[in-house]
């Protein structure tokens, strides 16, 4: 057995495999534990996710200190112990973690920990009690899938992890079982399945062209095929490579909600429970979308090395600009706070695509920095919006007047994240926007800076609307929200379905207004995230020191 599986001896760490494996194994027994002891289920989920966070941090440190900038773990080899064929093709599945992957894996597990802490108090008020076991099971599975995507180095392996993450998220979006969440889940599912199947198509074409599923080896083969002169037999394969690249771009654009395919995001993210919205907006569209976008475009297809990169760059740039402006304009039109945040996510995905489309190390650095920063900001925004809904049941921005005085800590955290989103200097959102703007100037494209500025102004319009209403809005008579039907959860709380179709606690079961504004379990993740936003804004150098070598590894 040891012969078959242990390959961590020279350059690799067992943690690369252990992180997804321990999460998946725990997820499988978690809902059984819920039947046995409902109370300890949330603690076990939080414990295992935080354990994986610690492992991911250790892995990140190991990767930073590795000589090549990546770790390779060989899962399986030949009977004689041989790992490579004569041609240099690896035999088994190679789990290859580079700096970029390790950084995003740490981000995924870290935010997952906070979301599961937040869930403990939030979730019993949102879904039926009998479903809580399944909720934690799917939550852990989703994080396992997203972490697995970041750690793997094999095309099909990433597809399996992507489906683990996607299918669990379909279930999580549908879990409140309201009209809205079911409808959103159906749309999300159909579009997501279509995106995944296009990715399989891309993988097949890549496999046909290169004869391998290993990303690093496929990259070498792609380089040989694309640079082969006419007349060389390899030259005939270039069409397969181009078709595969096209499939990957379309499939991953769907998954990361770039412009023509953004509609599912605006439905699915607001309809999910807020803890899940935070993970979907903060991590899901990144790890299954933009992360793989960068991984395939740069590591496998070598966009920076070949001439098709120059052809694709303007196309991606146009999509990015439309996504940025379209997302921001749609966000202004929303009255539902979570829907507004979802459209804001669409706009921010455009920022990241803009950084990628510059095809320069500086642009890629800005894009990765923005992936990291946006994950922190948007998770905080969704979690504090969820806290507002938990405490007051208000989703409509127009009804939020002076809510900041009832829930000061929550709204201050929201304001910090909103200001970071707009790009106020000491906060981390400014740092990544600055990096993107500088990269655009370096690439001699000042128009993109103008787009960034316009988008920041639009951000200011819709975020200050919320902050302004919450702190300085006119006190208004709070009118009773008409509700369609009442269901009762097993805690004995009545859940009202308001005119927007979302459940909230009935007035009599709402926490007393005089008591502490939120349970500590819900406040803690908010405060930690707000502190992280400030910290990574002031000490952006720490991130840059990781991201710069990460980009060098991608750029090789």
């Amino acid at each position: 057995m040891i012969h078959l599986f242990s390959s961590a001896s020279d350059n690799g760490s067992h943690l690369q495999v252990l992180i997804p494996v321990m999460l998946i194994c725990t997820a499988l027994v978690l809902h059984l534990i819920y039947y046995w002891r409902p109370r300890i289920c949330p603690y076990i989920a939080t414990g295992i996710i935080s354990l994986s966070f610690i492992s991911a941090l250790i892995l990140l440190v190991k990767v930073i200190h590795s000589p090549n900038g990546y770790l390779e773990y060989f899962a399986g080899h030949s009977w004689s112990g041989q790992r490579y064929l004569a041609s240099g093709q690896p035999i088994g599945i190679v789990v290859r973690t580079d700096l970029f992957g390790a950084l995003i894996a740490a981000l995924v597990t870290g935010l997952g920990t906070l979301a599961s802490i937040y869930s403990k108090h939030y979730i019993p008020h949102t879904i039926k009690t009998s479903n809580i076991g399944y909720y934690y099971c799917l939550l852990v599975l989703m994080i396992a899938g997203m972490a697995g995507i970041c750690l793997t180095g094999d095309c099909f392996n990433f597809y399996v992890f992507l489906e683990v993450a996607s299918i669990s998220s379909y279930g999580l979006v549908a879990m409140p079982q309201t009209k809205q969440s079911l409808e959103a889940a159906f749309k999300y599912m159909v579009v997501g399945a279509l995106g995944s199947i296009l990715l399989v198509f891309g993988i097949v074409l890549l496999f046909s062209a290169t004869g391998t599923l290993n990303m690093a080896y496929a990259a070498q083969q792609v380089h040989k095929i694309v640079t082969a002169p006419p007349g060389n037999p390899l030259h005939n394969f270039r069409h397969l490579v181009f078709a595969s690249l096209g499939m990957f771009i379309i499939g991953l654009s769907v998954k990361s909600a770039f412009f023509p395919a953004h509609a599912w995001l605006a439905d699915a993210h607001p309809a999910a429970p807020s803890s899940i919205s935070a993970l979907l907006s903060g991590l899901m569209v990144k790890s299954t979308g933009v992360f793989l976008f960068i991984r395939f475009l740069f590591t496998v297809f070598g966009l920076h090395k070949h001439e098709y990169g120059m052809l694709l760059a303007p196309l991606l740039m146009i999509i990015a600009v439309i996504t940025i402006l379209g997302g921001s304009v749609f966000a202004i039109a929303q009255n539902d706070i979570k829907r507004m945040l979802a459209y804001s996510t669409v706009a921010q995905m455009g920022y990241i695509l803009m950084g990628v489309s510059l095809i320069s190390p500086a642009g890629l650095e800005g894009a990765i920095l923005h992936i990291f920063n946006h994950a922190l900001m948007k998770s905080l925004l969704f979690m504090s919006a969820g806290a507002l809904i938990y405490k007051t049941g208000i989703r409509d921005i127009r009804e939020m007047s002076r809510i900041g005085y009832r829930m000061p800590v929550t709204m201050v955290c929201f304001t910090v994240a909103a200001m970071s989103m707009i790009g106020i200097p000491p906060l981390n959102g400014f740092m990544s926007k600055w990096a993107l703007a500088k990269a655009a100037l370096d690439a001699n494209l000042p128009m993109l800076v103008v787009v960034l500025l316009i988008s920041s102004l639009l951000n200011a319009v819709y975020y200050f609307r919320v902050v302004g209403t919450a702190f300085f809005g006119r006190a208004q008579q709070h009118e009773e929200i008409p509700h369609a039907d009442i269901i009762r959860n097993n805690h004995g709380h009545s859940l009202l379905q308001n005119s927007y179709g979302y459940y909230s606690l009935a007035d009599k079961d709402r926490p007393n207004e005089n008591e502490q504004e939120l349970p500590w379990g819900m406040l803690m993740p908010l405060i930690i995230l707000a502190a992280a936003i400030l910290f990574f804004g002031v000490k952006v150098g720490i991130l840059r020191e990781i991201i710069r070598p990460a980009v060098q590894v991608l750029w090789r």
Partner: protein
Amino acid sequence: MIARFDYIAAVILFSIGLYALVVKPNLIKKLIGLNIIETSVYLFLIASGDVRLGIYTNQWAASNVIDNPQRAVQGLEPMINPIPSALVLTAIVVSVCVTAIALSVVVKLYQHYGTLDAREIASLKG
């Protein structure tokens, strides 16, 4: 061109599935369309490992004689590439999962709305 009729069949199936997914209002029919699309991709996947498509298969067969590298040099009789078949098995499991969860959501939607018509189930706008 005729020799690659399996690829053409895959493309036709893909178009049929996409048509059903986009045009049909019935949610179940949409799901059937999705499944047809998935089937077409699996057909393509299986076909890409076929014996007759000499070059990939020979390359693979030659390079995959692990324990006896000498045989690889001699060039072997062509064989079916087993990797696509293995991938299809995994992908089928995934599509079964998606179909199952989608059908259960459809059941719940029917309980809420009393219809499967996508035009009537459209409360999310903007």
